[in-house]
């Protein structure tokens, strides 16, 4: 017999307490993660923001962004005033006040001046490696998704590429060191003693020497490119597959060759997707320390990368400073004190802001393009 009164719930439903406990546990874990992240970022922002921002116009301390990195000298003058001067200003001070006593002098490496060198170096590494990775990655993705027959071999290749994405970045660093720094061929008139293989060219007095590119911008770019290639290939392949098969059929049935079809009907519609996924890869390239430690980065460099170059090629074969490596150096190589915090927190803060901008940019771009490309 149907009794409508039985439908009306009396008291708490069955399993209420268990349900509430599970719910509060899951919520607790979630908010714990959020709180920890917020505390971490809050600390960096609280300590780092004052370095970058000022109370008076133009509110941003451009000097920190544009000045070269120098050693910080901390000392008292004869009157007992404390001075904190980067190396250049310190020499100027000594020249200006000859014979005056300097007391309690301390020096802190890398802590004075600004971080122009690391910012520029990271930018160069990022641009170079993205150009390399996009070129190789898109080529491979086009082959895998448009040309290759779906055979077990291609399946294995795809799986291998996916697995490559899981390799720790330090392994890529060592790989880059042993291949790009020590082994890849160059053309030179004076082969190094440690060259693995040398043979002469037919013109001039040049040799092909398998001696590597040394620790240089191009070795770093190549290593970083290797590291993100799997990401780029996978993302590009997905974007290519997202283009409806109907476009390809229609184009082929119109008498287009396969390449014409790809160039006119597949690539233009998948390029936005490829580029937005690549923007996410940019944040990874910009942030990695391990791959560039042995291949490109240098802790201290007096000149900006393009200063004192004889040829454009020198830019590629010179070492650069890099923001993540700079942060590592500041954190691990020098003793922490009140005088080094400005550089430490400032660098981390600038780095966070850069990455946040790149991520936000890629998300906005992606949502805009998604809305635009509908079929």
């Amino acid at each position, binding site marked *: 017999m149907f009794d409508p009164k039985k439908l009306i719930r009396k008291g708490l439903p069955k399993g209420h307490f268990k349900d509430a406990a599970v719910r509060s546990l899951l919520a607790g874990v979630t908010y714990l993660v959020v709180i920890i992240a917020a505390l971490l970022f809050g600390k960096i922002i609280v300590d780092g923001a004052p370095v970058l921002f000022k109370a008076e116009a133009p509110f941003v301390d451009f000097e920190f962004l544009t000045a070269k990195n120098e050693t910080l000298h901390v000392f008292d003058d004869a009157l007992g005033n404390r001075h904190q001067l980067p190396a250049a200003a310190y020499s100027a001070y000594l020249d200006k006040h000859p014979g005056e006593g300097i007391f309690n002098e301390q020096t802190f490496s890398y802590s004075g001046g600004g971080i122009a060198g690391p910012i520029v170096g990271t930018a160069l590494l990022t641009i170079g490696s993205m150009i390399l990775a996009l070129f190789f990655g898109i080529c491979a993705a086009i082959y895998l998704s448009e040309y290759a*027959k*779906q055979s077990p071999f291609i399946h294995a290749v795809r799986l291998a590429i996916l697995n490559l994405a899981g390799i720790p970045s330090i392994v890529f660093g060592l790989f880059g060191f042993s291949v790009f720094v020590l082994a890849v061929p160059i053309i030179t008139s004076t082969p190094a003693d440690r060259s693995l293989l040398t043979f002469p060219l037919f013109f001039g007095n040049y040799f092909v020497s398998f001696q590597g590119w040394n620790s240089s911008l191009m070795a770093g770019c190549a290593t970083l490119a290797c590291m993100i290639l799997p990401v780029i290939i996978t993302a590009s392949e997905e974007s290519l597959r997202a283009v*409806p098969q*109907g*476009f*390809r*059929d*229609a*184009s*082929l*049935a*119109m*008498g*287009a*060759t396969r390449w*014409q079809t790809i160039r*006119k*009907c597949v690539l233009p*519609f998948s390029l936005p997707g490829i580029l937005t996924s690549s923007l996410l890869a940019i944040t990874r390239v910009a942030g990695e320390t391990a791959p560039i430690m042995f291949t490109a980065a240098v802790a201290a460099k007096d000149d900006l990368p393009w200063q004192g170059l004889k040829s454009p090629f020198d830019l590629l074969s010179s070492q650069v400073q890099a923001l993540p490596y700079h942060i590592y150096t500041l954190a691990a190589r020098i003793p922490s004190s009140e005088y080094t915090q400005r550089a430490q927190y400032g660098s981390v803060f600038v780095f966070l802001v850069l990455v946040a901008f790149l991520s936000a940019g890629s998300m906005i771009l992606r949502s805009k393009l998604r809305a635009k*490309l*509908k*079929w």
Partner: protein
Amino acid sequence: MHVTLNPTETIQQLGTSVSVRDLDFSYGSSPALKDISVEIPAKGVTAFIGPSGCGKSTLLRCINRMNDEIPGTRITRGKIEIGGIDIYDSSVDVVKLRRDVGMVFQKSNPFPRSIYENAAYGLRLRGERNKTVIDEAVEKSLQAAALWDEVKDRLQESALGLSGGQQQRLCIARTIAVQPQVVLMDEPCSALDPIATVKVEELIWDLKHEYTFVIVTHNMQQAARVSDKTAFFYMGELIEFGDTSKIFSNPRVKQTEDYITGRFG
């Protein structure tokens, strides 16, 4: 070496555009078409009818070698000739073949570009750069597809803004803009409403004196309305082929009669 498909003369002599001879075709190891022989006349409309999975679309896709794109498919016996040339011969350039044998798909698939660019696509593929030539061809093909009056003021707008029926007519315009010998249509109206279907049928009716149409359809009334010849397929075999009026009024084979009277399929 590429053999040019220039069958206009041959068609007038033989009265045949596409001739399928003893064709066996298989997907992997499972046969899809068995011993098909059809002589499709030049100019006019030939309809392929039959229940789902009977091989009519497969045969259609064989005619412009679109099946080449599907891995594991092959012709195991027989041949298809267009204007006396075996299109599966190794000397035939499949790209040039498809320029002469256009295809309209079941699902309308205009490119997400402007209406103008869609209609001009084939000409651009052929390397045509003269704007006046392209303009003329675009206008002519859109007029032929009965679309010109509806879109002439918004040629530069995206083709995706058109209705389903307009999109399908744009696909037809895109195909005939390059004046192919044969136009293959794979259930062109199956996703359209009745009014849009009538428009497409009228357009086929108007154009059949200039092109050879081969149309696959599930809709028997449509086959009866638009086609001159009808081929009935069942289980990968050609059961009956003949004049549409004869097939629909007085079929020779019992299976055909059963199918068109709706007793199965």
